[in-house]
C-alpha cells in the first residue's frame, strides 16, 4: 500500500468525523485514521489550532473526567470540500 500523504491523512480524519455525523470519539478516530496514538495527537492538535475541529467533553457516569469527543467545525467542512476538489483535480490529471 502506498504511503499516505499528509493531506490524505487530514482528509481521512475529517471524513471520519463527517461519517460519524460530525462527532467522534478519539478511539474511533484512532481506528479510522489508522495512525499511532502519538501521531494522531499531533494531527488533532494541528486541526484544533486551525479551528477545523473542536474538542468537547461530555459528562459521563462511569468516568470522573467525562467523555472526550471531536466535532468538525464549519471551517473544517469547507476545508474538506476544498481537499475533495484538489483530489478530483489530481485524479483528473492522473498525478
Amino acid at each position, binding site marked *: 500500500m502506498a504511503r499516505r500523504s499528509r493531506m490524505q491523512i487530514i482528509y481521512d480524519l475529517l471524513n471520519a468525523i463527517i461519517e460519524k455525523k460530525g462527532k467522534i470519539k478519539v478511539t474511533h478516530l484512532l481506528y479510522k485514521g489508522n495512525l499511532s496514538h502519538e501521531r494522531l495527537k499531533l494531527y488533532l492538535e494541528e486541526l484544533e489550532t486551525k479551528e477545523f475541529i473542536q474538542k468537547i467533553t461530555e459528562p459521563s457516569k462511569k468516568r470522573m473526567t467525562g467523555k472526550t469527543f471531536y466535532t468538525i467545525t464549519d471551517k473544517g*467542512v469547507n476545508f474538506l*470540500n476544498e481537499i475533495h*476538489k484538489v483530489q478530483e*483535480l489530481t485524479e*483528473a490529471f*492522473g*498525478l
Partner: protein
Amino acid sequence: MVIFSSLTEFVFINVILNLFCAIIAFAVSIFSYRALKITHEKNFLYFTLGFFLLAIGIIAGSIGNIAYYLSIDLCFFSNTCSLWQKLFYAFNLAFVALTLYAYNLFVFVYSKIRSRVLMFLVFIETSVIAIFLFKIFWFHLVAAVILLFLIFLSGKTYFKKRNSNSSLIFIAFILLCLSHVFFMFIAQIFSYLGHVSLVLGFLFFFVMLLRIKYIKRKIRRK
C-alpha cells in the same frame, strides 16, 4: 474558401477568441494555485505556472497580431512601419517561447521529472527553438509534437481511471494538438479550423474545471 472578408475582421475575431482562451487558462491557473496553497505539492506549482504562462503567451500573441495588423494597415499613413513590425516580432517571440515553456511544464508534471538540471536544459533548448526556429511553422510543429506526448500520457490516465474529468483533459490536449497542426498550413480554412480547435480545447478544460467546482457532491455534516 473565404471566411474572413477583411484583415480587420480576421484580427478582431482572432483577438476575441484568444482572449477567451487566455481567460480560461487564467481560471485553471488560479484553481491550480488554490490546490497548491492547500497541498504545497510541486505538481500544482508547475500546473499553476504552466497555465499562467499559456495565458500570458496567448495575450502576447494577440498583441503581436494587432501589431502585425497595424504594421500593414496604419503604417502606410505614417512612418511607424518598423516600430509595429518590431513589436510584432517581440510579442510573437514571447508567444512562441511562453507556449513552449508551458507545454514543457505539463510534460514535467506528467512524466514526474523533478531534476532541476534537466528542467534548465529543456528551458535553454526551448529558448533556442523559440529564437532560432522563429518561423511559425516550426513552432507549431514542435508544439504539436510535445502535445502528442501529452496526449499519450493523458490518454494513459484516462484509460486507467475511466472518469469524465480525465476524458475531458484527454480530449482538450487532442484539440490543442489539432489546432497546432491546422495552424501549420497557410490556407484560411486551416486558420479557421485551428481557432475552432483551440477554443474547443480550452472549453474542455473549462468544463472540467466547472465539473470539479460545482457539479460534484458537496460534503455536508449529516
